[in-house]
């Protein structure tokens, strides 16, 4: 099972803070994004248009990254820490 976390504006779009997906062994981050897209096309579009970054176990990785059971994936909208 893969844990997916949503932050900031994406929580509103997802309607939740966290999701769980069961994927076949050897699935990539791209496979996960397609699964997310099926449940929430708006989120899928944002990922496709690279409006969100994606981390796996706290590091930003590329779409061909292979996922393992219990991996924590996070969808991260553009950061806005610090001050203007």
């Amino acid at each position, binding site marked *: 099972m893969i844990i997916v976390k949503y932050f900031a504006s994406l929580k509103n779009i997802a309607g939740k803070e966290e999701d769980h997906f069961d994927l076949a062994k050897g699935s990539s981050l791209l496979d996960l994004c397609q699964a997310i897209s099926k449940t929430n096309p708006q989120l899928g579009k944002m990922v496709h248009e690279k409006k969100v970054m994606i*981390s796996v176990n*706290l590091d930003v990785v590329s779409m061909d990254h292979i996922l393992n059971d219990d991996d924590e994936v996070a969808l991260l*909208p*553009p*950061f*806005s*820490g*610090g001050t*203007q």
Partner: protein
Amino acid sequence: MSQALESKVRIQIENFDVSDEIEAIKKVSPNIGGIVTFLGTGREQSKGETISELNFEHYPQMAEKKLEEIRQRAIEEYKIIDMSIIHRIGKIDIGENIVLIVAAGEHRKEAFIACEWAIAELKRITPIWKRETTTTGEVWVQDTP
């Protein structure tokens, strides 16, 4: 001085005291000669709108990890003696402290460079998000620097 000051990289709800953070970093070496700090505070105006409050959210563990990366790179690449980085989360009123970066060097030049680099890098790579509350509602700020 609180226990919390022992960690040089922190994300916390409570306010921080700039003097306490400076005194903590001074203890690292008697060869510190220049300390540059950046303090970000809540501004009343943002793109022509009047802000009543700010709210910050972070991705726990990842945000702290990124701040520690920034601290380590600042020390190694800019040859400063030490750096501390503190970012508040939760509700922030106008005028309140949001973020503090303290760069301590032997001389001022490297401390200025490291401090300015660190706040830009914080904005670029640290998973922290700001929600602004204005008279017209609440909005997550999405512009990257």
